[in-house]
């Protein structure tokens, strides 16, 4: 399996705080990779750096073999590298369907395509299918801002799927979700990977979820890469246990 995403010796500091230090990791194409670590270990910062929200201080980030660390957020997104946000971001004043339609992939289209109607049947069908996939079909005409927190998270996930990414980076996809619904979400993530061929890179705090979901896991602590391996290896790694239970 070739590497879809390669992060090499990436460092990022904010003022005096070293958020990421010399981090190297790799996400193989078609896989599901996890990123864990206690609060403040630099996981979200790393995600943000990868998608171009922050310029990195050192290192290299390659997507599909091409260097992306100098590119801007929209450019990287158009290459097929998307992320969802920890605080769940959707377009609150638009309906779910509209959220979906505007999330349709722009990679295959030119700027002029934006002036086509909103009700393209192929796009609408795709949107409805994705909403159905996450279980939001009945809510499709509601204003997105009126959905519950969990429903908004699902909508954000559906919007990401709509965009047909190659690699989808999810920042704590199960945070704040009712525990009874988490299995359903894990199932959908696996199906997105298996059926739609989307590579997943997931930040998670819920150990049960990530052990169940990921094939390979990286653990960060204090901004550095602490451990890497299969779920079993990570589960038994004393350094990881220390990092979570030990002193900060």
């Amino acid at each position, binding site marked *: 399996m070739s590497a879809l995403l390669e992060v090499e010796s990436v460092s990022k500091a904010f003022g005096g705080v070293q958020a990421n230090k010399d981090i190297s990791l790799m996400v193989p194409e078609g896989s599901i990779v996890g990123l864990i670590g206690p609060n403040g270990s630099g996981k979200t910062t790393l995600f943000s750096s990868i998608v171009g*929200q*922050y310029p990195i201080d050192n290192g290299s980030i390659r997507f599909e073999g091409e260097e992306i660390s100098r590119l*801007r957020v929209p450019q990287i997104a158009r290459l097929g590298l998307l992320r969802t946000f920890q605080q769940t971001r959707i377009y609150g004043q638009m309906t779910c369907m509209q959220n979906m339609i505007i999330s349709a992939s722009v990679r295959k289209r030119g700027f002029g395509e934006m002036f086509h109607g909103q009700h393209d049947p192929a796009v609408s069908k795709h949107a409805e299918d994705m909403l159905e996939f996450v279980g939001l079909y009945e809510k499709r005409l509601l204003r997105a801002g009126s959905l519950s927190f969990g429903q908004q998270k699902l909508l954000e996930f559906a919007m990401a799927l709509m965009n047909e990414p190659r690699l989808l980076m999810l920042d704590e996809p199960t945070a704040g979700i009712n525990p009874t619904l988490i299995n359903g979400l894990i199932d959908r993530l696996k199906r997105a990977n298996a059926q739609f061929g989307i590579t997943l890179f997931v930040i998670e705090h819920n150990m049960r979820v990530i052990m169940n979901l990921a094939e390979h896991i990286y653990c960060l602590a204090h901004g550095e890469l602490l451990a890497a391996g299969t779920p079993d290896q990570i589960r038994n790694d004393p350094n990881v246990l220390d990092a979570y239970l030990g002193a900060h």
Partner: protein
Amino acid sequence: MLLFQAPVISADLIINGLLIGAIFALAAYGMALVWGVMNIINIAQGEFVMLGGYVAMILFWNGIHPLFSVAVAPFVLFFVGWALYKLVVFRVVDRDLFVSLLATFGLSILMQQLMNTVFTGNIQTAQSGLGTIQLGSISILSIKVVAFFFTIILGGCLVVFMRKSRLGQAIRATSQNARAARVLGVDTDKVYAVTFGLNAAICGAAGAMVAMAYSIHPYIGLPYTIRAFMIVVVAGLGNIAGVVLAGLGLGAAENVASFVLGTEFQLAFTFCLLVVVLVWRNTRLAAKRQYLK
């Protein structure tokens, strides 16, 4: 260019520029205060300056020496600011910043037009009759120098007030974290009212000096607002030294530009400078994938 062939003229320009620049810095300090404490950008800032100027004019017209207005104007304007807060501003404090921009813009237009209707659009000066000072071959109006020193003293008093007095500390606490301040028993609404009134008073003092040392009319407001805003953007909220330096620098720059470009382009220079400053600032932030917040 003319500037370097006639060094006397340029020193004169710069000194006069610094003198007015101190007044700009004062208005900027007030704007930063309100912005930092209440998260409101007061577009009517210049109108408070203008009103202060008219207080000086009213004293002058009634035979009272306008220097007294330096004490009277802040007093009057404090109540104007406090009243405007209680009537209008408190309703927009918690809302979108654009709403507060529009509301204060509306207030600014209201006050301009009110003054224009009552006092006409004539340009006025409150003559203080203090003559001129000679610095070598440069001749400076004494009132400008008096105004400059008074501004420094007022600025100093304000800084001390904010650091040492209980009210000043309450204001600073609220600006850092309003919710925490409330929890600790600070009446934030009262703090906001006092802050807004204090800002108006500061501008009132500035305006009184402008009326004496320069001139006023109902429409001087917007340029003062823009100057204050520019200074705050360049210096940053909370950077007093920066505000002073930026204010002085702006005064000098404007004066020089007015000489070089012609007085008919003075305001054009000020507003173009605003655009340039904002675009430059934003572009530099954009290189770091950020934008002005």
